[in-house]
Each structure stands twice: as C-alpha cells, then as structure tokens.
C-alpha cells in the first residue's frame, strides 16, 4: 500500500484507465500543458499527447456537448469542469441531453461520460470557487453522482465511473485534494457506484454525510467516543445518486438517532432526500427528531475569512450536534 493524497489517487485512476482503454480521453480547460489548475492532469499530456488530453476553448456547454458526441462515437470521455461553480452553463447539456439520451432513444444510445469537477469551500474561493453543486443534479434521473472522501474511494470510484455505461458526475472536494491522504493499494481495484460505506461503526447514533465533512464527522466521533463514550456510526454516502437506502436504513434502525451533515446549504440539499427516505421508511425506529447540520441558506461562500469561517461546518459543531442527539 502506498499513501496518496486524494489528488494523486484521482490522477492515478485517470492514468491507469487511459492506459487500459484507448477510448478514454480527458478534455477541459487547461488540462493539457498546465495539467489543470489543480494539477490533477499533470503529466498526462506527455504520456498521451494533446489529442487525448485536450485543452478546449473556454465553454462548458461545449465541453459536455463534445463529450456526449464523442461518447456516441464510442469514446469514453472524461470532461473536467475547472470549478464546479462553472458547471451551470453546461446544465442543459447535462440534464436535458446526457441524462436523457438513453431514455429518449429507448435504450438505443448511451452516454458513457464522466464529468469531473472540483467543488467545495474553505479555500478562500469566494462565491464562485467554493460552491457545492451536487444538489442541483440529484433530482435528475439518468445521472449518477459520486463524491468521494478518501483517496481509496476516489480512485476506485473514478475507475468505476469511467467504465460506467451512464453519465457520472464526479465531484472532488478542493480542500481534500492535498490535505487528505490515505492508503491506496498498488493493485488494480474498482469500487461499486451506489454503495455507501460505514466509515466508523457505532451504536448510539447514525451520522450520514459525504465529502470533506466525512473527516469532520470522523474527528468529532472520535473525540465524542473518547470524551463521553458515545459511539457514532459514520456513514459516508460516497454515491449521492442513486442513494444507498439500505445502508442508511440498516443503521438508523439500529441507532434510532440521525444526524445528516453536509457542507452544501440546507434547503433542498442532499440531506433533505436522506431525511425524507428515513421519515418514510424508518419513522418508528426514530428516538429523536432527525437533525440536519448544514450551512445556512446563503450563497456559498464569502471571500472574507471571517465570513468563510462563519459558513464552513466545523468539528465543534458536529461534536455538539452529535452529543445533543445522543443525549436527547
């Protein structure tokens, strides 16, 4: 096992898939010589050449549209949107096109594309380099949405996404890119899309989360265990669409207490759907109201450090929310 950053694990997945399958190519703004503004695609152009590591014009709708076309022709495009905040011009191509191609052609055509996008805040990115956009897509049938928290998951899930016959949005948390390290096996592996992962077992309450918040939750859970003997079960959704109901419900039925946490704002976030699933399918197992811990409904997130800090979820908030819930 080697220790890798999240970013390295993603890069490794891209390189391995491009070596494995000629049809795989990456496209996006600055992915070539620059290696991406975060350096995720660094070095790829040297190995695979500019045709398979394609610097596109500055146009996100085009990037996704070209990926869709190339996929129709039999390629396996991996499109990079430079920041998730800039995915919006491509929403028509994603929602009305990519997501519906299989359905509208009655299964005759598919759309095996991956759209990678760095997302999330806490990096002095201000209003347009900090957004979480996953909730804008989780209502769309035909899409899959992946948001890994660890290098291991990122690598295995990106490989799965590239091999998936349907369009996958793959969100990479910017703050995690270099700050999160973890073990990654040398040998080839692929993880299943659609399966949550119990990152920490526990019996007193269930914490359901994803992305960078997984790490906040794990740290809060560790402290809580140490300080108060409260054992939180931390579920990392990993895939946001389709959501792994079984893992959620199994845990909730066991603990009876649920904290849902995300960095994305509250109203209409992924947490709403998770809460609704539980309220529909495990209501009588609940010993306490469901709690959603998420930033307030403001635009994520101001540039000023104090305001950014006021927006970003913290370990302390999680600790307090978990403790209060356990004691409820």
């Amino acid at each position, binding site marked *: 096992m080697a220790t890798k950053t999240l970013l390295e694990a993603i890069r490794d997945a891209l390189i391995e898939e491009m070596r494995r399958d000629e049809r795989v190519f990456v496209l996006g703004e600055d992915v070539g010589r620059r290696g991406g503004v975060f350096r995720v695609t660094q070095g790829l152009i040297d190995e695979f050449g500019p045709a398979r590591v*394609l610097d596109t*014009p500055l146009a996100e709708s085009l990037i996704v549209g070209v990926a869709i076309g190339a996929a129709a022709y039999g390629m396996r495009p991996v499109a990079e949107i430079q920041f998730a905040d800039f995915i919006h011009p491509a929403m*028509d191509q994603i929602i009305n096109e990519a997501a519906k191609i299989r359905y509208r052609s009655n299964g005759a055509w598919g759309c095996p594309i991956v759209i990678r996008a760095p997302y999330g805040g806490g990096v002095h990115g201000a209003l347009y380099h900090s957004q979480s956009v996953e909730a804008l897509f989780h209502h769309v049938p*035909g899409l899959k949405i992946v948001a890994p928290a660890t290098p291991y998951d990122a690598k295995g899930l990106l490989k799965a996404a590239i091999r998936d016959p349907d369009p996958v949005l793959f969100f990479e948390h910017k703050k995690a890119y270099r700050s999160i390290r973890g073990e990654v096996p040398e040998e080839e592996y692929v993880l299943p899309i659609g399966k949550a992962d119990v990152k920490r077992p526990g019996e007193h309450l269930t914490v359901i989360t994803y992305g960078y918040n997984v790490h906040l939750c794990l740290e809060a859970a560790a402290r809580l265990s140490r300080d108060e003997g409260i054992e939180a079960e931390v579920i990392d959704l990993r895939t946001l669409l389709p959501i792994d109901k079984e893992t959620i419900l199994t845990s909730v039925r066991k603990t009876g207490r649920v904290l849902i946490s995300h960095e994305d704002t509250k109203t209409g976030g992924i947490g709403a759907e998770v809460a609704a699933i539980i309220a529909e399918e495990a209501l009588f197992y609940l010993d306490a109201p469901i709690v959603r811990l998420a930033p307030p409904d403001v635009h994520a997130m101001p540039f000023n450090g104090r305001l950014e800090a006021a927006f970003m979820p913290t370990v302390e908030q999680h600790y307090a929310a978990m403790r209060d819930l356990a004691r409820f």
Partner: protein
Amino acid sequence: MDNRHAALGLNDDALVAMYEKMLLTRLLDERAWVLNRLGKVHFLVSAQGHEACQVGAAWALRPGVDWLLPYYRDLGVILTIGMTPRDYLLALLAKAEDPNSGGRQMPSHWSYPPLNIFTGSSPVGTQVPHAAGIAYGAKLRGDDIVVYVSFGEGTASQGDVHEGMNFAAVHKLPVIFLCQNNRYAISVPQQKQMAVENVADRAAGYGFPGVVVDGMDPLAVYAAMQEAVERARRGEGPTLIEAKVYRLTPHSSDDDDRTYRPREEVEEWKRRDGVARFKEYLMGVGVWTEEADQELRRRLLAEIDAAVEYAQAAADPEPSDLLRHVYAE
C-alpha cells in the same frame, strides 16, 4: 433547359431518385397533417418547403458511413438516407416499435443507430456540440467520416451553435453545418433574430467557408454539400451551408401562422415550391413525364397507405416500459 445535373456527377436515374425522395417527403408530410386533423396524431412538425434542401443535402452523404444529427424538420433527410415512411409513422403514432424512441419522444425526434443517426432532443442547438464531438471521436480514431448537422436560422442564435462551430473550426473537424433558413423561428421573423442577411456570414468569424444556396433547388444544395464533403474528407475542416427555404405550413400542428405571416408572402413562396420546380426541371431535361409522375404518386401513396395501416395496427408500449432505460440494463 440546360442539363445542370450531369456536371454534378448525377445521372438521370439519380435525378429521378432524388425527385422521388422529395415527393415522398411531401406526400408523407401531407398525410401526417391529415392524420392530425383526423385526431389520430397529437403533434407534428412539418417539412414542407424544405424538401429540396433536405434531399439535396442527404444525397451527398454515405448511408451507414457518415453520421447525421438532423433537426426536427429533416424528414427529407432521414428518408433519403434510408429510414422509411413506416419508421416515421411509428413515431408519429408513438408506437412501441418506433425505432427512434419507442414512442417516447415527439415525432420527428430522429434516432437510428443503424444509419448513424444520433438521437436528438427538442431544446434547439444542443446537437451542434454533439456533432463536433462525434467528429472529434472520428478524428481520434482516424476514421474517414463526415458529420451532418442541421438547424434553423432561429437556432443559430443559441450559444451552443457558436460554441460547437468554433470547436469544429479549431480542430478542422469534418462537420457540415446546414442552416435551413426559412426566415422565421415560429413567429419571430429573421430581422428580429439577427441584423444580418445571411447566417452563413458567421462562418468567416470561425475560420471556415460559409455558403449561401437556394434551398428550393436540390441541385444547388447538393453541389454545395458535395464540395463541403470533399473539403471535410480532405481534412480541411467544416463548412457552413445556409439554404434559403420557406416553411409552407404553420410551424407545427399546434401553430397558427396567420397572426404573423401575410398570406401573400406564403402564396408567393408556394409558387417557388422546390418540389414543383424540380419536377419541371426533370420534365425540361426530358427525363420525366406527367404520366410517370402520376404513376410515382400512386406508388408512393400506396406505400404510405401501407405504412399508415401498419403503424396504426402496431402495439403501444406497455405501461411498465415507463421504468425502462433510465440507466443501462
């Protein structure tokens, strides 16, 4: 009358065959209106006035080799490249057997993998980046194909059209953009859509040729397409062809064009109808007669009758089909 077709490499048989596709398109479209007025068809979008352009364009393409992203008005294109009246009617009546979408999409939302017709949607212009992407895929693979993509002049206002054309230019992709300019986007006349006479003038701003042709003349369109195809296959990149046409009917079966188009204008264009003009040309160069025409009409109408009958008898999808094909099965 001068023989214009020989110089284009078209022999008399080809000429007649082109005319046959044009007439088939017209008659099939007319039948669709009848079915609509009879209440058997919920919706249709008409190709009348565009047939010459469409058949001339598709004639330059290689069925099963080249790729097509035809827009909703392109009935003439899909019939010329090899889809059948039956295929069209199955979609018009939204039957399970509809090869385009199994009755899921509105009629005229083409899709047919055997002929490399990529599935299209209603939001206009989105197909243009797809065409560029298909061509880019072919370039990566080193395949010798041409990609045909069409749209109306109204659609040329969309950002996707700009983005797709520009990308095709950068990579000298083998894409042919056919803008069928019928002067209206539903009710909005050209002068409210753009301040220029020709959409084709935009091609220069991307760095490839833009050509204006008389879309009522299939030979003119064919000639422009042929040149564009050759250019594309030589690796010199895309061409934008703008065919000046006119929609002889309302926009769709839901439209009423009397509020926004003077009747005289419509009548004036009917006199320039491409189907009638092409028939005159055929007769003028001596390859066609009134009798042959009657005979052809009878044959085509019989074919259409049979297709209508077949499609009407065909099965609806099962309600449970609703749940299928959201993801790969």
